[in-house]
Structures are given as C-alpha cells and as structure tokens.
C-alpha cells in the first residue's frame, strides 16, 4: 500500500436512535479532519451536507436498506471511489440503515485493501427499544444490530426513568455481552475519541487523562509506557483479552527479538492489528500505548501488567521497571 489505509467507522442503530444527530455533531464539532460520511438511511432527518463541505469533507449516499447484493455493490462502488481519490478523506463514517447489519459494513473495511476497520458504534433509543425488542417484526433486527456493536450507546436516557433504564441496560448486555455500554442523551459523545484519527498524543507515563470535563464522565484515556520489548504472542493475547471497558488502543511498541524495529499497534473493539512501522526518516515516536475506554477501564498499572506477563526465571517482576 502506498498510503495508510483509511479508517472506517460504522454508526448503526434503528431509525430514530440518534444516528443522524450524532453525525451532525461530528461534522459540526471537529475540525482538521476530512470526513466522508456515507449515508445508507434515508430517514426523516437529513445529514447536513453543507456542514460537511464546510469542514472539508463530503456526504455521499448509498442504497437504503439491507445489504443484499445490489445494495452492497452500491456501497463497494462508493468505497472504491473514495479510496482511489487523489485526495482521499482522512476518515470514512458509514451510517448504516436501520435494517442493515453493521457487521457487514465493518467487514468490508476489514477486507478492502484501502481501508482499516474502526469502531462500530450502535445507538439504541432507550425510550423505545424495549417495545421494539418485543415487536414481532423488529425483534431480530434490533438484536442483530446490538450484537454487532463494538460500543453500544444508550441514547435519550434523559427521557427514561431510572428503573426502565436498568431494564434497557439488561437487554443491551444480553445482546452484546462483550461490548462496553454507555448512557447519554442527545447523542452527546466525545467525538474525538470515537472518530478522530487516534494519533498518540504525548502524555506522561501512566497518566490518566479525562478528555475535557464534558467527556470525562463518559470516557477515560490512559497512556501506558511500553519501554521494554514485548513478546508478540503475549501482547496479542493480552490486548484481545482486555475487559470490554477498553474501547481502543493505539501506539508503538518494540517486540522481543528485534527491539530496534518499531511496531504500530491498533486495537479497535476486540480487533487487533500489529504491523512493522517504518519511521521513514521521521523521529522515532515514543514507545507507549494510549488506551481509551469507559470510566470503569482498569488503571494504567493494571493494563501494563496485562501486557507484560510474568516470565519465569528472568528475574524481572511484572509491574514494569
């Protein structure tokens, strides 16, 4: 690949769950990143195309509905066009229709040589989901969607009484036991954590950062130094075995055997990519991993321990230097 694959995020959820609100927030609230937003749901609310253009991105549509052959082709054509542009977008966000399985869209990003799969975020309308889950016509559709989430967002929580919210949480946890669950209203989410290009930002060793007071309540970010070389198998096992509260991780590590070569690590949901990284003359980046997760994400020390398992006979303890 001549260029880095473009990250692709999917926003799923049934009609009325708040997908469009979230997208409009994204287009409004971020700058410096060119988003291409692909819309597969022609609901009542519209994506503000002007807003996207103002921010250097575009909105495209592809056929509504489920991704049967015809519609899938429409999406693939759009993705091919985007990745082959002279100035491709920095990030692609696909709004899946209320009946599409977000997994199929995310899978296209896994297989497409020009794309990298990023988070699949599924919104749930906390006010109506329990009725939808009982509706003979909609039951399986909302279940499938929730099951496809890397992150499940219970939206419109302000409209729902506490005991009902607990029932919604139970339902959600049954559908997607692996996915972290967060509650919000008006699709208010810290967008830069969910969509922005997750560049490793300089941070002190092991320091916990709450991203702004507005977001701090929903997300945590932790930088963990990875100074010692890691064993590849242990790193894989450690990262894919992290608790669901860890949403993503990104950063650079060196691996045992070839400590001089840096590797780029990208964990999105439970999906992991580790590949050799060529600095290409640039100053070598800091060896650390930045973790982003929900407030119950484990501490930096805990995360470090999870990736440096005890090695018998080396004399090193497992808590870092």
């Amino acid at each position, binding site marked *: 690949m001549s260029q880095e694959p473009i990250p692709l995020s999917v926003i799923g959820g049934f009609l009325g769950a708040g997908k469009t609100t979230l997208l409009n927030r994204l287009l409004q609230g971020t700058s410096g990143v060119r988003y291409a937003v692909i819309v597969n749901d022609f609901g009542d609310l519209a994506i503000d195309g002007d807003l996207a253009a103002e921010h250097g991105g575009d909105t495209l549509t592809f056929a*509504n*509905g*489920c991704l049967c052959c015809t519609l899938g082709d429409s999406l693939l*054509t759009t993705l091919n066009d985007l990745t082959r542009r002279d100035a491709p977008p920095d990030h692609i966000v696909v709004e899946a229709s209320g*009946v599409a399985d977000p997994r199929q869209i995310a899978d*296209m990003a896994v*297989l497409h040589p020009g794309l990298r799969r990023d988070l699949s975020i599924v919104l749930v309308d906390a006010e109506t989901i329990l009725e939808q889950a009982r509706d003979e016509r909609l039951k399986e559709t909302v279940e499938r969607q929730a099951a496809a989430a890397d992150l499940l967002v219970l939206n419109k929580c302000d409209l729902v009484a506490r005991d009902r919210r607990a029932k919604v949480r139970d339902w959600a946890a049954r559908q997607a036991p692996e996915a972290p669950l967060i509650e919000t209203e008006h699709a208010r989410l810290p967008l830069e954590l969910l969509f922005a290009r997750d560049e490793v930002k300089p941070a002190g060793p092991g320091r916990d950062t709450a991203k702004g007071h507005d977001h701090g309540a929903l997300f945590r970010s932790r930088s963990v130094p990875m100074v010692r070389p890691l064993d590849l198998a242990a790193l894989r096992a450690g990262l894919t075995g992290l608790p669901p509260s860890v949403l993503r991780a990104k950063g650079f590590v060196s691996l045992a055997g070839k400590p001089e070569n840096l590797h780029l690590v990208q964990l999105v949901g439970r999906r992991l990519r580790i590949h050799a990284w060529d600095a290409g003359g640039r100053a070598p980046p800091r060896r650390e991993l930045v973790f982003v997760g929900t407030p119950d994400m484990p501490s930096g020390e805990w995360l470090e321990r999870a990736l440096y398992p005890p090695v018998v006979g080396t004399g090193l303890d497992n808590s870092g230097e």
Partner: protein
Amino acid sequence: MSGITVFRAKKILTMNPRAPVASHVAVRDGIILGAGALEDLSGWGAYDLDEGFADKVLMPGMIEGHSHSMEGSVWQDHYVGYYARRGPDGVERPALRSIEEVVAYLQRAEAEMGDSEAAIIAWGFDPIYFTGPRMTAADLDKVSTSRPVVVVHASFHIINVNSVVLSRANIDADTDVMGIMKGGDGAPNGELQGMPARFLALGAIGRDHFEEMGKKESLWRFARSAQLAGVTTATDLANALPEKTLANLKEVTGDPGYPLRIVPAFLGLSCPAAEGVAKMRDLSAQSTDKLRLGLVKLVADGSIQGFTARLKEPGYFNGSPNGLWYIDPGQIAGTLSAYHEAGFQVHIHTNGDQATETVLDAIEEVLTRTPNPDARFTLQHCQMAHEAHFARMARLGVCANLFANHLYYWGDQHYEQTMGPERAERMNAANTAARHGVPYAIHSDAPITPLAPLFTAWCAVNRKTVSGRVLGAAERISVEDALRAVTLGAAYTLKLDSELGSIETGKRADFTVLGEDPLAAGAEGLKDVPVWGTVLGGRAFPCADIPKE
C-alpha cells in the same frame, strides 16, 4: 400508408375471450388490425399473405413479468448447474451431477484458454442436490493454480474460489470476517458466504458484476435467451439505471433487429425517495415502444430457501431464525407513497408472509390517503400469501406475480425444511389468487431459474417437485389459465394490457410462434412444446437465426 401483412397460421390462440381462436392475423406498422378468418380481414385493404406459419401455432408474445438482465451477463461465464440448461445461443449446457464433474468441466474449459492470466468464472452451482463434502479451494486448485477460479452458487449469494483468489483478496487464517468459511485446520476453505467477502473477492480479480449486466453484449444475450423461450417482453427487476446502462438499453432496443421489449424497474432504494421521483420523471419521459420506463421496485425481505424471508409465527419449519428486512418496515409506507403520489407504479418483492402482510398494511395506508383505483401495486414472488392475504389484495386492487418455478426446483426443500407440508402446499397459490379475482402472473426470476414461460406455466399447472411430489393439488390451475398468466396476466401487472398480451385489433403484433398447439399438448406436455421463435412488432425472429457462441 405502408403495407399490410396477413399471417396465416395453423392455429392462433388469441387470449381474446370473444374470439379465442383464429386462423389469420393482419398486421400494419407493427400493430394488429385484426384476427379472424381471412375474409374478416380483407376489408383493411391490399395485403401480402405470409404463409410461413401455416404449420405453426401463434399465441400472444409471452411476457416474463419477473426476470433480470443478469440473465444476459451470466452466460459469458461457464454454467455448472445440476440441471442441463440452454444458453442464449440455443446450445444446451450439460447437467453436472457431482463436484468431480464440475471440476472436470472447468479443467476442459481451462485447457482451451490461452491467456494464462484470465479468470475462470462459473455459475449455477447448486450443492443443495449433493451429499458428501462441500466444494473447497483444493477442488478448484485442480482447475488452475495460476489463474483465479470462481464458482458462483445458484443462489448467487455464495461463491467458491481457488487459492489464487484467496491470496489476491488477502484472505487467510487470520481474516476475521463473517462468512469466510474455514476448514478443520483453521485456514479459509474457499467458500465465501458473506456479501463483503464475496464482493471483495470478485473485486480482487477485477469483476464488477453490475457493470457486466448493463453491457450491450449482455443485453443482447438477454434478448436471445428470451427469444428462444418465445418471450417478446421481459422485465429487468430491478436496476439502478445508471447513465451508462440507460444509454446501452436505449441503443440496443433502438436496433430494429433487437428482439425484445424491456421493462426495467428502477431500484427504488438506490437513493432517497425524492431523488428517485425526480429520476423517474426524467426516465419515464424517455420511454419508447421497446424500452418501457416508469416502473419502480422495492424489496421488503429476502428469500425462503436462503432463510432470509420474514415469516410470521410459526416461523421456519426447521427452526431457523427469522429472516431479514431489506427495508425498514416503518419506512415502507413513506417510500411507497412518494412514488405513488408522483404517479409511478410500484412492485414490491415480498417472500415471507410477514413481509406480505406488512407491505399490504403499507399499501392500505397509502391508498387510504391517496386513493387510486388503478395503482396496481404488485407483490413480486408473494410465495407465502394465503386466503386472507389474497382476499385483502383483491379489495386493494393489488396484483400478485407468483414464483411458480420454485415449486419444481425447491418444492421438496420447502416441504421438508423451510415451510413444512401445509404451508409448502399452499405456496404460490395461483388458484386462490384466481378465486379471489386477484390479477396474477407467474415468473422465473431468471437467471435464478431458466427463462421459459412454458415451463413456468407447466409448474403452475402441475405443481410437481423435482422428486415428483405434487405440492398442493388444490392450487393447480388449468393450462388455459397458465397461458393467460404468462401473457395478459403479466401485461396487466405492468399496465401494458391495453397494448400487449392478446392478439386483437389495436394491440402490438407480438407473437410467440410454436411448433405445436400448447392446449393440445396438455398439462404434461406444455413444457416441451417447441418454440420456433417470435414475432415482434410484425417482424419475425426465428430461433434458427441466432448465432452460436
């Protein structure tokens, strides 16, 4: 004034209830002046008497109410189905009854190819009829390890590929994507079930199957396939109708030698409804007598044999989970009404009974708000509709186009796996539709099953499955009714019944030319009645003139 031709035939089945049989039909400028005895027609003026059909039987040009132009593009590839099938060049491809036979067939095809880069693509493979292990990449590596080999299943939803394709598509043991089947060793075994894997594998070998469909060669093959079956009008259900496809459709149908009228339906979900309506206005203004633009198609659910149709209780017979909506049920009425209010007719694919019922709810809502007694919403497939549904369809003026070929090809699977006996026996209930006065047609969904309305009629008349079981004797219809369904019945669902579908004065001179009388052939022999060719707008198109590929 141009000349009048009077065709004499051994027998003319007119579908005109006032005069069901004639011996002569007079044609001027592609329009029928009249059918009857020669003396009834001579008053129109001087004529040439064409005796070419003196030993043939004419009937109204048959209309395939649900086919796809993909019927044209698939034949550029190798057919490897379980049943022998005639190609658009008239040559029958052999039945391949095992994986070994498929591999051997493709090995022979490979040996004839010089260019070592080109891919081998085959279609129509149907493992539902095989016992034993499924096809793997190792099987297809026996065909070639240097060029891509792809075998597309009859459902078009699953493909098998060789290792060349797997490596070009970067699919390996670590690829974590739904639908990439893996063997006991954890490595991908070459079967790709999911849409993403299928499309990206085809993309990796440079095949864009939607582009293929709209190519001129494909449209010609589509027409020849139709001509061989005696079809003069066929639908392409549906097509997003991009610029290039539309230009090609116009060009081919504009050729007087092109033997088919095409009715493409615009894929109503390919853009927001407001855009779609604008596109339809633009398209319908470009209609010609051989390219009819103005129909919209929506798809509500999946397929029964793929377990993706939306069912009501008690669900699938074998306990499979309920299927998929292809459109949000809450958005059906809104989408329908956008096209309906703009004056466009909409056909809706519904397979499962829940989809049928949900769409009927939406139609009722739309028609209550914006009444139109001649809207002719048509349910395509409508395979699980029962008594109450047909009664309701009759009240709403909704038509049904039933998938009669399913009864033969998958009837046994429906009986044993998908529907169970009772529901299987009332599938594609043509007789119930007729009893309720629901206007109906019957179809092939080509290339899913062969484009051949006489066979489709045979299926509706006999309701025999592959194994020979009669699936629901009470839903059988008469030969006369079946022939009406593939002519006037289909014309009605397309709002073309005032110009097509029967041989009577004022209609277009489209005929199916048969070697025998289908009424005399009877229920058993209907599918074997030889097709000599067609007449389209007064011009004869003999099958014998079709070039071999």
